[in-house]
């Protein structure tokens, strides 16, 4: 008898798939249901079902990651609601997938195809196609980067201790950083925080286009700069939106604000 595993984090979706499968393929024996990716891998490895229906977005381990652990033993069918990148990849790679919510007609076609494949596999006793592993690996990176080319990840939140909890300050709120002896001062429009990270460390971790170093002790967010002017001593002074004071630009960094 053909066995199957269903993995989906939403119980109603599992119920629906089970009900539809019972109609479309009464002989199919559903041996286990998993509520997350980790459980799916555990049950899949233990019970070795012929078919694994895997939801793509699951906590713990995504359906694709789970598939990479299970595809040698079980035939994989993905279920997804809307992930366009994944759908394109499935079409190209000839992986089986179901669109949620699962319609009876669509499931009938899928079941017929699955039956044909399983027959072929048992008659030829062939292993699953070799390239599925590669396809899954490609899918994993594709979904992680959402189809965009890989970009280095920059620091987006600054963590500052306030009382017992950690304040998460979004870099978009920050006007500038200023080193202040042992600490670094983080200035936002409404407040200031002290953190232990040094300017040097911040410089390495922040996006270089988002923050500029204008002085040995100052990093300013480019979008917050309102104007640059010269004072009577010829120093360049920066005005920042939402902050009354001025920031000095040191000579080494004045090239940042040369006239076009």
């Amino acid at each position: 008898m053909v066995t199957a595993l269903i993995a989906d984090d939403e119980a109603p979706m599992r119920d629906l798939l089970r009900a539809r499968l019972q109609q479309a393929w009464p002989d199919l024996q559903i041996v286990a249901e998993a509520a997350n990716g980790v459980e799916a891998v555990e049950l899949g490895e233990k019970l070795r079902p012929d078919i694994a229906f895997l939801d793509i977005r699951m906590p713990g381990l995504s359906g694709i990651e789970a598939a990479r652990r299970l595809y040698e033993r079980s035939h994989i069918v993905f279920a997804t609601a809307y992930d366009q990148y994944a759908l394109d990849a499935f079409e190209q790679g000839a992986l089986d997938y179901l669109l949620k919510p699962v319609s009876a007609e669509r499931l009938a076609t899928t079941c017929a195809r699955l039956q044909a494949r399983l027959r072929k596999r048992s008659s030829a006793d062939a292993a699953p196609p070799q390239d599925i592993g590669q396809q899954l690996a490609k899918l994993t990176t594709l979904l992680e980067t959402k189809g965009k080319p890989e970009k280095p990840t920059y620091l987006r939140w600054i963590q500052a201790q306030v009382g017992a909890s950690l304040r998460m300050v979004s870099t978009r709120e920050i006007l500038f950083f200023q080193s202040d002896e042992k600490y670094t001062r983080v200035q936002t429009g409404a407040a200031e925080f002290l953190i232990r990270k040094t300017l040097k460390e911040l410089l390495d971790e922040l996006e270089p286009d988002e923050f500029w170093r204008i002085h040995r002790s100052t990093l300013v967010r480019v979008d917050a700069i309102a104007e640059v002017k010269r004072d009577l001593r010829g120093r360049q002074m920066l005005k920042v939106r939402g902050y009354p004071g001025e920031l000095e630009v040191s000579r080494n960094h004045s090239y940042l604000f040369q006239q076009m």
Partner: protein
Amino acid sequence: MRASDINRVLDFVRDAFHEASKLWWRFFDWLAVVEWRQLFLTWFFVVIFFQLVNTPEPGFWYIFISFAVKVLAGGKRKAELMAREATAQANVATLERRLMEAQMAALQAQVEPHFLFNTLALIGQLIETDPKEAARVHAHLIDYLRSTLPQMRQRGGATLGKQVELSRAYLAIMQARMKERLHVRFDVPDFLGSAPFPPMMLQTLIENAIKHGLEPKIEGGTVAVRAHVVGADLHVEVCDDGVGIDPHADDGVGLANIRERLQLLYGAEASLAISTPPGGGACATIRLPYKMMEDA
């Protein structure tokens, strides 16, 4: 003299010059817009005052300079000032338009198609397996849509009470999907229900808590919504005990949108603060001026 002394003197001279020019221009602006009748009155008092202290000359100088300035440059300056005021008003108009646009953007984004789609799918499947539950979810969806959609037309939705109601309906639907993985706690006193609160902010925070905090966590967790008055401010807090915040994750358009709208609506009197409590998870707190009810 050392260089630092020279700098200090220069700083002082610059500051003094700056102050004097500021005062002069303020006087100049006043002259430009003041009515002649009021100017005569000041001349009268100034003359009397300087007669009393027995040195009449400064008084006459004042009359002479102010008369000359007003006649020679007053008209032009007045026109300039009026032009500036008109610009300022235009800026306010621009600001209001941007506020409208921000609100529209927020409103347009409010019923996420995926959410609607998934909920309808859920109802469709519950009709077959659990019709009672289907009816419940269906009723919540109607509540949710009713309190979401009319905001385009009427102003009544912008109270904390309405926003909480909307969030309850949303959370009830999410609970039907996530089952025991999602727990919900509301701690919002009834008397705060009439307090003005901008639409779709609570909603965004709750969606974030579920999407980024609880959905990725295998065992799920709790979303807690709390509102209280601190001094003159209303604090509304959405906390979850999920996976917390990755410092390298983008903070997303949702939070940036809330921040921008708070800034447009209340300026520096409102804020959005995100923190991670020692026990894990994440908390988002909106602080804004507390009012008992909306202005008529």
